[in-house]
């Protein structure tokens, strides 16, 4: 059956009938969010600190989630990843000592995409994901691992820098995939 459940074809391709809610710009905006997020991730901190190299962890991002079998399925996987990244970066960042403005813009950009997509989904009453989906569960496990890692290290500088590097790798992979689509 469908991989990432119902494809949002109706949502993304159809023009809306109401004047207030438009959903056609979401694919284009998604591309921009990925670009912006990568730039801001670089901007918010400095080079990876040497002292944190010893603490590096292998989180093993489930790359098969982004294998483009179905374009829409991949796009929805990316939306879910945005949710997870937004959540992780909302935690206690005081010890990370990153640029507050860049961080705010990073979060704000992710959130705008999340919110608008959500509104379109609710409006169109479209079921995005079907529950029985191994890839999505793998994705959730991956982010749970990062969350637990941060908790265990009490959100110290190195745990944050490692997480930031990991998110950067994740977004770069997404960027590569979305450019092909």
């Amino acid at each position, binding site marked *: 059956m469908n991989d990432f459940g119902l494809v949002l074809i109706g949502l993304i391709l159809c*023009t809306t009938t109401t004047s207030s809610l*438009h959903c*056609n*710009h979401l*694919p*284009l*905006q998604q591309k*921009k*969010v990925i670009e*912006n997020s990568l730039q801001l991730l670089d901007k918010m901190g400095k080079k990876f600190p040497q002292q944190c190299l010893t603490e590096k962890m292998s989180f093993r991002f489930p790359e098969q989630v982004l294998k483009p079998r179905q374009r829409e399925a991949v796009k*929805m996987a990316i*939306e*879910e990843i945005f*949710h*997870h990244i*937004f*959540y992780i970066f*909302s935690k206690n960042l005081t010890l990370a000592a990153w640029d507050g*403005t860049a961080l*705010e*813009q990073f*979060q*704000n*950009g*992710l*959130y*705008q*995409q999340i*919110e*608008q*997509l*959500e509104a379109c*989904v*609710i409006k169109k009453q479209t*079921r*995005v*994901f079907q*529950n*029985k989906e*191994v890839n999505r*569960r*793998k994705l*959730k*496990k991956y*982010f*749970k691992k990062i*969350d637990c890692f941060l908790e265990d290290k009490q959100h110290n500088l190195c745990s944050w820098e490692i997480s930031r590097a990991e998110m950067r790798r994740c977004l770069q992979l997404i960027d590569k995939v979305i450019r092909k689509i």
Partner: protein
Amino acid sequence: GQTSLKSPQDIQVYVVNTNFTLRWKYIGNDTDVTFSAEYRWFEDFGIDGTEWTELPGCQYVTRKECDFSSAITEYYDEYHLRIRTERREEVSPWSSIFEMTPYDIAQIGPPGIELQSINGDIKIKVSPPEANRVRKMWIDDLSFKYSLVIWENTPNAKFRNQHIFPTDIIDDLAPDTTYCLKVQATYPLESKEGLFSPVHCVKTTHKVNVPFCPTNVTILALNMNFHLHWNNQYQQHVSYNVQYLSGYLKKLYDDYSIKWLNVPGCENITDTQCNFSSIITTVSGSFYLRVQAMNEYNKSCLSNEVKVDPLVTNEIGPPDVKVDIGDDALLHIQIYPPGGSQSQLMRDHYDLSYRILYWNNSSNNEVEIQRKEIKQTIGTISDLTPSTLYCVKVQAFSVVYNKSSDFSKEECIKTPGDKILPLIILATFVIAVFVVLLVAVPLVFILYQVYNKIKYVFFPSCQPPLNIEGFGGQFFNSPYRSTTEEPIENCSIIETIITEDLNQIDFKDCKHSKQSSRDSGNYSNDDDTSGNKASEETLEKEII
């Protein structure tokens, strides 16, 4: 041996957050039976699971349900469950296996609510379903969208549904009225709806109307230039402070009311408008804006909030257009994208295209407007009729954002006339004239000559005298003979009168003939050199 105990049937698992309850049915009247369950777990999506293990919390239970929350640690992995009936040494066969993935069947528990009424509105604070829990099913509590149901505490009251943020204000309520409400957490992307919280009721306070509160707060944005406008009926001694908030802050569980910032350049102003373009540092990200008014007694009032989604709120301005006709006789349209310094940003984010409208403005008949849509900033129009005035106007539009600008000013240009045709006409004319002359002049000349000859022959200017008609070749000899008498024969008398007449003839009359004749001498007229052979010959012919 064979057992008479029946296996439990209709196994169900009920999960709320991280609380797992196993339920089953047992067909049989036996009262002294107990039930025990086993489970196995497929770690990390593996094919081979663990061995069947006793399910903690579900060993020798007498009721037909048990709580096995302690056994489940990995919520994304698959678990298999089975249960059997026991009585003393007897055991039933194992029931059918129940397969489950905890996350998939888990329900979202009810959220927590705190209520407070302020100035006729209800301020609500929602806490996530697993707040303060160590082990969470719903790790990402930011992904919840909270759904509120509110109604007046009167019989047959209408229900009102709306989405709210974790910290939000429910307005548009009647003051001094008791309202009841309940909230559920939802995961829109997974179409998951959680359990409702218990119903909470609160009475709204009375509303104080502050006269100088800013009203009609609206946003006007053109080409990424953002302006906030508002009204105020009470104009005197009021200063304003425009504040903004990053959109994502409302999604967090922290109190964002302390996070509003002043818009630079719009602090302590008296004008009822503000240019807040400076805070739109990036088009990715929404903002909320509000106006705080302060009167002379330092009493303040906050306006309603308005939301800005930069690319959605902004309107695209018209482009600039220049038209030109190239040597290829094509109409070239140069489009200058709207936005000035922001034009690159707009082109990039809106994925702008351009709609060109052009028409023939020369004729007075009904004008047929043609259109062309392009993505580049240079357009060409071909198939134009020469010597016609064409007018062009262009609008920029974004397909994905469903936005289009006003049309640019009309630019008109006349197509050049056909250069070649007049040249051809001129050349043809010249050649024709030349040919005509070439033919006509000799023709006229020939005709004239013919005319002359005819005239000379039929209408000569010098007439021979009538009496020399038929005179023959003795003409020349006769002048000599006329003076001497000729020997007269007996036969006839030759009249010599004629010869004397001949003498009288003055050849001077025939001056037109060119050849001169030479007399023998006696009768040569010295002054008459025009006497000629030709006239003599013609006279001879006449005589003959």
